[in-house]
């Protein structure tokens, strides 16, 4: 017996001597670093590149401009992150945002209500749609993608019915021939146009403040509260969460409500920025938001939906597009660039992570 073992180890030594020693120790931390900080490094590199290649990229105004350009998609992306965390998906966010924009316009222009009523109506619509999404998914057992896709179609159609397909602006002609009397209230428009002082006068737009506040809120909620932790548990193994005493369906429904409310906030800001209920706007919102949330998987090697990653993902897209615009790259390449970034980010996350297994 001992002889045999001895022979084996000889055999092993011989064959191992022929092989180059793998530098496993040295390679592993490198890959680890790449997974963790690769994307942030890329973002940083991009900023450095653009500030060298263009003029005025690093000014506070330019930075704020980038934030403003991604604020609405960023808010939607943060909402959809909540549904990704519980293992779901919400395709209706884009249409919730546009419905909420139309509703805000309708409430103020046609119903002649003030800004507060408009905002509350929008939030209520978002919460209600989210609730319905959640109920359909949890209790009717319709798969999330299908349920929210259906909801998307429904809302796109619904938002056109009250005005028979017209955009809403002050002084518009109603279907019955009369003229709408209401206007967008100044307080409401301020949500889209007011700028707060921050070291420089009139620097930070309200929408950016809203984005940052919501990002911090949802980030804290998901990372540091027990509700957030449970939502991750539900997404990873719903049955185990149930056996640990979690009301699984309630958590899922809440995730869709969060997503709906965030989307409606995005819609409010959109209405305030445009100053009208534009039937044709907001086409790209869904795809951009989903892209930001998915790019977020790559940030810090999380490989799971996370609020910080989503915010960085949105910022990344904003920086890239603004930089390319300033370098006079034609606007019609934008979607291609966004798609490419998304694919690269996903490959980056899953290929690198997969190999450590």
């Amino acid at each position, binding site marked *: 017996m001992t002889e045999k073992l001895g022979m084996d180890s000889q055999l092993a030594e011989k064959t191992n001597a022929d092989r180059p020693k793998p530098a496993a120790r040295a390679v592993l931390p490198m890959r680890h670093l790449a997974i963790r900080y690769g994307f942030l490094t890329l973002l940083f590199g991009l900023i450095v590149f653009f500030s060298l290649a263009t003029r005025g990229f690093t000014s506070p105004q330019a930075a704020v401009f980038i934030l403003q350009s991604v604020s609405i998609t960023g808010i939607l992306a943060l909402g959809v992150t909540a549904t990704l965390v519980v293992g779901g998906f919400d395709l209706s966010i884009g249409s919730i945002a546009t419905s909420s924009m139309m509703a805000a316009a309708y409430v103020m222009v046609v119903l002649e209500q003030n800004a507060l009523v408009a905002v509350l109506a929008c939030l209520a619509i978002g919460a209600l749609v989210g609730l319905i999404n959640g109920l359909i998914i949890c209790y009717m057992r319709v798969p999330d993608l299908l349920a929210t896709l259906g909801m998307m179609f429904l809302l796109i159609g619904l938002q056109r019915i009250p005005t028979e397909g017209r955009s809403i602006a002050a002084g518009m002609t109603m279907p019955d021939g009369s003229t709408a009397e209401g206007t967008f209230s100044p307080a409401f428009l301020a949500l889209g146009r007011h700028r707060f002082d921050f070291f420089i006068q009139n620097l930070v737009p309200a929408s950016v403040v809203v984005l940052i506040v919501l990002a911090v809120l949802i980030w804290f909620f998901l990372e540091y509260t027990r509700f957030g932790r449970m939502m991750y548990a539900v997404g*990873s193994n719903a049955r185990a969460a149930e056996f640990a005493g979690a009301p699984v369906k309630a958590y899922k429904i809440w995730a869709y409500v969060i997503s709906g409310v965030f989307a409606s906030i995005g819609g409010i800001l959109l209405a305030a920025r445009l100053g009208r209920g534009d039937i044709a706007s907001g086409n790209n919102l869904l795809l951009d938001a989903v892209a930001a949330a998915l790019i977020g998987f790559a940030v810090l090697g999380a490989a799971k939906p996370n609020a910080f990653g989503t915010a960085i993902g949105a910022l990344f897209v904003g920086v890239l597009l603004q930089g390319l615009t300033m370098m006079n790259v034609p606007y019609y390449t934008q979607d291609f660039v966004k798609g490419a970034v998304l694919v690269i980010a996903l490959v980056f996350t899953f290929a690198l992570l997969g190999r450590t297994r």
Partner: protein
Amino acid sequence: MGSATFRATFRIAGLRKSFGPNEVLRGVSLELRGGEVTVLMGANGAGKSTLVKIMSGIYRADRGVMMLGETPFAPSSPAEAMRAGVVTVHQNIDDGVVGALDVASNLVLDRFNGPGRGIFFNPRRTRREAREVAQRMGLSIDLKADLTDLPLADRQMVAIARAMAHKPQVMVLDEPTSSLSSHEANRLFSLIDRLRERGVAILYISHRMSDIRRVADRIVSLRDGAISGLFEDKPLDYEGAVDAMLGQSLGQSGIAARAATKPVFEARDLQLKPGATPFSLAVGAGEIVAVTGLVGVGKTLLSETVFGLQAPLAGAMRLDGTSYAPATPAAAIARGVFLVAKDRAKTGIVPDFNVYENMSLPFLPRLSRLGVTRRGTERAAARAQIADLKIVCRSERDDLATLSGGNQQKVTVARWLAQPSRLLVLDEPFQGVDISARHDIAAKLRGSAGDRATLIFLTELDEALETADRILVMSEHTLVGEHRNENVDMERLLADVAGGQVGAA
């Protein structure tokens, strides 16, 4: 035949494997011969499954060689290993079956790809081939059923049947019986006997001594990633093998049965299933009651009823003298009733979470302040549990998926021991746990009993005899026998266990 001329079917030499700084296999050399069952023994986290995963092409070894017959064997994928004739049933059953497909497709899954296969899927042929495989195995499962809907034991049998369908040269079984009843295990053993006659080399991993005694031709002990003993002289030295795998000898753990004082949990005229006879039971303070019986006699149903996952058809339960009818697990937990559920992969662990997050999951409301989690508290509690149950991991921040099967099981048990409870229900808590850890957990249960009532569901009689003060026997969804764990009349106990079956046949 002389050992000098004898050619081993499969040889491993100097195998090494590390995960980051964690050196799991440190030069393992081993040979498997055709027509022999080699049992590999080792404590939880010794590296058994890692070795198996290297043999089956899931991991690559850092160093070392494997030889299949006369040719070097270095599979780069599970499919390649399988085609070469090295077939594996993994410890994590869900690695071996595809949940979204039906049983028939699972049984013949591997025939779908590989050279010489048509493009089109032929459901009739699939079903026919699957029926052949099932028949050869004596498998009586609905072939059209979705795999996710099957109980653990059936999923296990499907995984095994699927592996057997390959006409293997080398067959590796990683804890195949951990969730099987003795009836199903016996079916597996007779299959193993047939494979052995056909000259297949078999590597068998198990923590169950009864399995090992039944199948072993030789035993190899693995300790901390190195071979620590080889036993092939008949009669096999089982104690020696256990000592070699633990690095010390295992103390005898006799237990003194305690009598219950006041009842903590009572169930009266409980009916679990239409047509089943109602039964009553009581568990006292400080008492450990084991419920034993074959797989599928309603043990899990009873555990889920007590935990509020299922409402009883009839009857009432009382806890601490007041009525107890939990509608949800949350309600049960609030009353101090905890369940260590069976089938940890499905109902226990959250694979994306690390060790401490898994442990604190049910107790987040108490471990957080104003809804905000307190990681420091959670981690300290987890560290205490890791030390207590000797869970092998580098820290409480390890991802659960990187722990060995037995250590994952220990985490799910530790989770529910971390907080005081009134009634602790454990359903097959020793699944995949090694002998010494089993003794540790049993000792921990007895030591921490206090005035808590403990109800523990075990298919293995030996485990019940090792742990409980009182043993109840379940059959056909009702209780059919009761034994105090003191000079147990084994014949009567075994007759009780078999009773329902005989009556039904």
